[in-house]
């Protein structure tokens, strides 16, 4: 886009880059805010249906689809309260810390091939690192509220998030290992082709570890059954007990943004990212290169693919939330340390051994590209290959790295 602004419109370079950055940031912000509006409405409807109710029906026509907007206006109009004993600065800054952490993680998240704020070659690592920072806002909120409920909620959240980062990291390593890259774009590109190329169906171990990832992801974004930080039956509302109005809604936007983020991450790591179950573009003779309109259309379809998968992930989390009862804190820790971590470790080793035993996959003919030498840089300077050459058999990186 910046090159287009420079070359076609004739803007100066600094202005072109600034506009590009602002457009990208605005788009991400809209994904977060618009997503939160839609998901809050969906959550109301899903909760209602699971509990055999109707949910919002009146606001804005047939399905109450304007309910989120009405909520938003209500939140705007609410009085912004702060407790007397609160630490004012920390109390005010906490929601923004949470929100900024979620927002920053979106920068490195690709929505389709090349539809990415900033493509990082350590994208997975960056997203996981930034996602863990969201808890800062919660702890600050809990501390600054000068309320025992809030403090309890914050402490629980800290313990939970710190614990669940371990199995989460282990789950994420498996697709990284299979793809040979931490670049999210590369990882998704490696799963191009038919449904069977998705890492979810790569081998039994990745299938199991996907569900471990789902568990850890739900826990790391504090959704029920892991929402101990805001256990309303014991802690009133947990860390955001003292918050109201717009500040409170920032926490919720951060929560829904994180839900969407981990779902999109799951889609990219395990479910082919923007590659649909059937390689329509490849069958039609198109490829995701750069250039003309057809390729652009391919990417828009890919964008729809990814958004659909991520939305399904969020809906799945809602389904879980309204189905399962909340765990106790010791059960949360047991789930993490006694189940998720060992299972993830074993599955990691298993996926590694599977890759050694069946490097071509069990179904050889299913559109998986033939073996290529992945690490071209291991070749010697004179063109002859060095003694160590790592053969890769599952896909090509040349297209993605370029």
């Amino acid at each position, binding site marked *: 886009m910046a090159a287009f602004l420079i070359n076609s419109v004739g803007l100066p370079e600094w202005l072109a880059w600034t506009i590009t950055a602002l457009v990208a940031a605005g788009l991400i912000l809209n994904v977060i805010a618009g997503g939160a509006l839609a998901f809050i409405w969906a959550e109301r409807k899903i909760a209602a249906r699971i509990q055999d109710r109707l949910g919002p029906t009146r606001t804005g026509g047939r399905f109450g689809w304007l309910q989120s907007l009405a909520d938003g206006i209500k939140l705007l109009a609410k009085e912004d309260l702060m407790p007397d004993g609160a630490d004012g*600065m920390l109390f005010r800054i906490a929601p923004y810390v949470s929100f900024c952490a979620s927002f920053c993680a979106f920068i490195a998240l690709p929505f389709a091939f*090349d539809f990415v704020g900033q493509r*990082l070659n*350590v994208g997975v690592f960056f997203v*996981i*690192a930034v996602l863990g920072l969201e808890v800062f806002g919660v702890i600050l909120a809990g*501390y600054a509220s000068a309320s025992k409920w809030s403090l309890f909620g914050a402490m629980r959240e800290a313990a939970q998030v710190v614990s669940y980062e371990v199995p989460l990291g282990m789950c994420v390593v498996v697709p990284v290992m299979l793809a040979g890259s931490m670049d999210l774009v590369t990882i998704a590109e490696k799963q191009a082709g038919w449904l069977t190329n998705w890492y979810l169906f790569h081998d039994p171990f990745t299938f199991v570890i996907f569900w471990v990832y789902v568990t850890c992801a739900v826990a790391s974004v504090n959704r029920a059954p892991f929402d101990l930080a805001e256990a309303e039956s014991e802690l009133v509302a947990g860390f955001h007990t003292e918050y109201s109005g717009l500040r409170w809604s920032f926490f919720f936007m951060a929560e829904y943004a994180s839900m969407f983020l981990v779902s999109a991450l799951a889609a990219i790591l395990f479910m082919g990212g923007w590659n649909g179950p059937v390689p329509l573009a490849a069958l039609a003779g198109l490829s995701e290169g750069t*250039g003309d309109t057809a390729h652009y259309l391919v990417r828009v379809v890919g964008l729809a693919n990814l958004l659909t998968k991520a939305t399904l992930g969020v809906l799945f989390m809602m389904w879980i939330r309204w189905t399962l009862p909340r765990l106790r804190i010791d059960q949360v820790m047991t789930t993490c340390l006694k189940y998720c971590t060992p299972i993830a470790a074993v599955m990691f080793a298993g996926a590694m051994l599977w890759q050694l035993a069946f490097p071509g996959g069990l179904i050889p003919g299913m559109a998986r590209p033939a073996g290529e030498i992945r690490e071209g840089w291991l070749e010697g300077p004179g063109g002859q290959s060095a003694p160590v050459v790592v053969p890769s058999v599952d896909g090509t990186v040349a297209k993605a790295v370029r």
Partner: protein
Amino acid sequence: MGNESMISLSGMVMTPVLAAGLPLAAINWHSVLFLLFASLASIFAVGVVLADNVVRMALYLVFSLAATAGLFFLAGAEFIGAMQLMIYVGGTLVLLVFGVMLTAQAPFVSIKPSAADRALAGLAGSSLLVVLLAAAVSVDSWQRPGLSEVTAPTATPLGMALLGMRVDGPAAGAAAGAVANGYLLPFEIVSIHLLVVLVGAAYLARAKRRRTPRPIDAAASAVSVVEGITRVELPAALPPRSGSASALVSGGSK
């Protein structure tokens, strides 16, 4: 919308071609961003020193370290930047938690160092600053603003080197076909050390569970308890259940 749709920081460092006569175009935006992040880091670092609330200190430390991560990203060292976020900023989380837990008690809510402490800290800090500044100024290549494009920075060579495969090739003058040594051994040594630390931490922090004594121990402790008071006849056959053993202990101490 190809690669160019990415917001690349490297685009900002290029000399503006179409300046359009605006003074803004003459600014080196890379330097501006560098100064922005650097001053943020410095300001919050000063904030850490001046704040007297532990939680605020930790928060300022987080901001300072995050700004440093921004500097790394600006330099194109994405892996180091993400590491900075993960390890330092994430590690400060634990510090923050401790701060929150400490400030639940009144004496720690605000920390006011004495004048002597301030003087000592100022002395140590300023002498360290002088040493660092002298070292930084003395490096010749750092004095000129040299902007070089990073060609496709990637963390893969780093990881491969840790696995024992160097990408940058053998050193000059090495035999033909030689491969440069990787860092597998140091990596493994560090890993083992960390594992030992983890196991040790888990051992130290384990729940102190009251152990039901084994019959033989119970009998022995029963002997030691009542020693000097009376002699206890050890049963010829030790009871198999620990419950009866504890009964023995209580009976012995009576």
